[in-house]
């Protein structure tokens, strides 16, 4: 590690040894993407706080950890929670474990289908973490839904299984919906409590005309873990990308989403909730590009912070000149439960079209003393009253999710959070 590579040196030197053994080594485009990724990472290093988009999130702990890649799959199968949906795809340390999965139609391990999928792998766009992923990915989900297919609800489980050694895995998920296709993914990421692993997934998502993708992510990584995820979704005319991300685990987590609304009446929802307890750092950063007319977008992100913790919300909405009659809404709210908690919120609207409706708002505050008194005056003890109000904030945060399987996964992560973490 040196100053030039900003903590990326370890990854870069391991890539030197791995490049011929990684999947797709014989495929021109894959090789090129890996080399380009390495070049981006070499040039920029892990992003530092001098970079505007990373002002509030410091990757120094990631840079200082000495990760290795999990080159061999773990021997025994990890214990799995009960499946929530008939089709469940299980990843262990970033590799699709077929023997643990019930793959839905049109789904496959990316490593096995790289030849078909390579055209869908997007360039890193100068993003160092995407570069890192391009350089190192071994596997991921390749889900390619044909025209009009309805895949129902698919559960994805991302497990970190390697114990003691700090390992890093960089799964690459390629998801394409042909016109009129429908898909709901409910994804949960978890790992051992004390393991300092890095989960660095990248998603290449394409939603074609009239297709609809509901993407619910429940981040419950182990409390010493890092998750740095980047989603890039392109949505064609009349299509919908509906993302809800719950950040509840991990030591340092960044959830970065880029959505481009490319055709008229394409829609995006980028909602989320962050539950940040003592010692945790959670960052939701989104970029929404309204590039076509008549597109609606909705975003509500709620963050609740306890103990000594830090939350970040950055939400940029770009409305291009072509994007007339854009209907955008953004709201971020933070509830601070301790004096030592901190939230940085940065909404950003950049509007070049003249006929648009864009509203945004933000609130930051502690529990409302009036509400607390009302509950206590009804006989509810102070601690219980606080728990009720925190739970109410969280309930409201996940309210918009309608898929029952997703609701159950969110409910499990959210209920009792305050009692577990703060009381």
């Amino acid at each position, binding site marked *: 590690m040196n100053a030039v590579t900003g903590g990326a040196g370890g990854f870069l030197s391991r890539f030197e040894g791995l490049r011929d053994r990684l999947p797709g080594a014989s495929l021109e485009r894959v090789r090129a993407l890996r080399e380009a990724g390495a070049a981006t990472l070499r040039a920029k290093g892990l992003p530092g706080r001098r970079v505007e988009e990373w002002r509030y999130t410091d990757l120094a702990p990631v840079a200082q950890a000495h990760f290795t890649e999990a080159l061999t799959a773990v021997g025994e199968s990890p214990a799995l929670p009960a499946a929530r949906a008939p089709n469940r795809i299980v990843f262990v340390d970033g590799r699709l474990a077929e023997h643990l999965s019930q793959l839905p139609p049109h789904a496959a391990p990316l490593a096995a289908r790289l030849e078909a999928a390579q055209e869908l792998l997007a360039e890193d766009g100068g993003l160092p973490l995407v570069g890192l992923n391009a350089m190192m990915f071994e596997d991921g989900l390749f889900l390619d839904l044909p025209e009009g297919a309805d895949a129902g609800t698919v559960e994805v489980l991302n497990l970190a299984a390697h114990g003691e050694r700090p390992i890093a895995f960089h799964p690459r998920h390629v998801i394409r919906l042909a016109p009129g296709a429908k898909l709901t993914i409910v994804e949960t990421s978890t790992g051992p409590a004390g393991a300092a692993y890095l989960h660095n997934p990248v998603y290449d998502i394409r939603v074609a005309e009239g297709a609809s993708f509901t993407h619910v992510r429940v981040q419950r990584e182990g409390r010493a873990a890092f998750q740095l995820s980047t989603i890039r979704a392109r949505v064609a005319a009349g299509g919908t990308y509906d993302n809800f991300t719950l950040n509840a685990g991990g030591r340092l987590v960044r959830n970065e989403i880029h959505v481009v609304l490319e055709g008229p009446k394409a829609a995006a929802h980028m909602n989320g909730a962050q539950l940040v307890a003592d010692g945790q750092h959670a960052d939701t950063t989104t970029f929404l590009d309204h590039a076509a007319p008549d597109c609606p977008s909705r975003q509500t992100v709620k963050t609740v912070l306890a103990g000594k913790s830090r939350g970040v919300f950055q939400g940029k909405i770009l409305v291009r000149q072509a994007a007339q009659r854009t209907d955008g809404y953004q709201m971020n709210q933070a509830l601070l439960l301790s004096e030592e908690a901190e939230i940085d919120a940065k909404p950003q609207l950049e509007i070049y079209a003249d006929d648009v409706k864009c509203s945004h708002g933000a609130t930051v505050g502690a529990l409302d003393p009036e509400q607390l008194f*009302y509950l*206590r*005056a*009804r*006989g*509810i003890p102070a601690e*219980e009253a606080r728990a009720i109000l925190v739970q*109410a904030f*969280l309930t*409201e945060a996940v309210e918009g999710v309608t898929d029952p399987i997703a609701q159950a996964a969110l409910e499990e992560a959210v209920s009792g959070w305050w009692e577990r973490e703060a009381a």
Partner: protein
Amino acid sequence: MLRIEGLTAEIEGKQILKGIDLEVPKGEIHAIMGPNGSGKSTLSYVLSGREGYDITGGSVTWNGQDLLAMEPEERAAAGLFLAFQYPVELPGVGNANFLRTALNAQRRARGEKEVDAMAFLKLAREKLKQLQMSDEMLKRNVNVGFSGGEKKRNEVLQMALMNPSMAILDETDSGLDIDALRIVSEGVNALRGPDFSALVITHYQRLLNYIVPDRVHVLMGGRIVRSGGKELAEELEAQGYGQASAA
């Protein structure tokens, strides 16, 4: 018996209650009237234990206990109920859940058995019916999007469920339509008995035709300036506070 003696209180350094003396014997209903800003709600908040007030003097005893030394939830469990002048909205908190949690918190504090969801629903439906309210109320978030009158009715529903021995009704009649006023009054009268007392704060003599008070007090400038029978309310209605207080 509620006994308030020489009670003085301030908020943010501003003295609001300037020596309140008031006794409400068990089984009696007393009305408090008085101009805007005279300290009626402040008195109700101090009695129910809201934070932010400095009690600078005096005492409040209730059934022999030092009321001011109790936490708000202890007062509630002991049978004190405040119907808020401005009921508070609780987004994300379902009304049914809220009511049952409150009822059970009080029961637990009193060492009584908690009521389960089924028994609660039965009880709540019965009270809703008495108050001619729709079951819909239970499904909504507490006071969120309720009309002014619905909020007041929801306060009375809570009172009916909690079955307090001392109720403070802070302008519960404001915002109620004519029918609701009668129904709500019947709700209060239903609780009337040797073990139930109430302080009814109101601006309107009309309410006191329905809930007939044993005594009427006039609160002005942080003091009780006059007390009398129910006819005092009529006198106030006719003459206004200026005349009545001078009398």
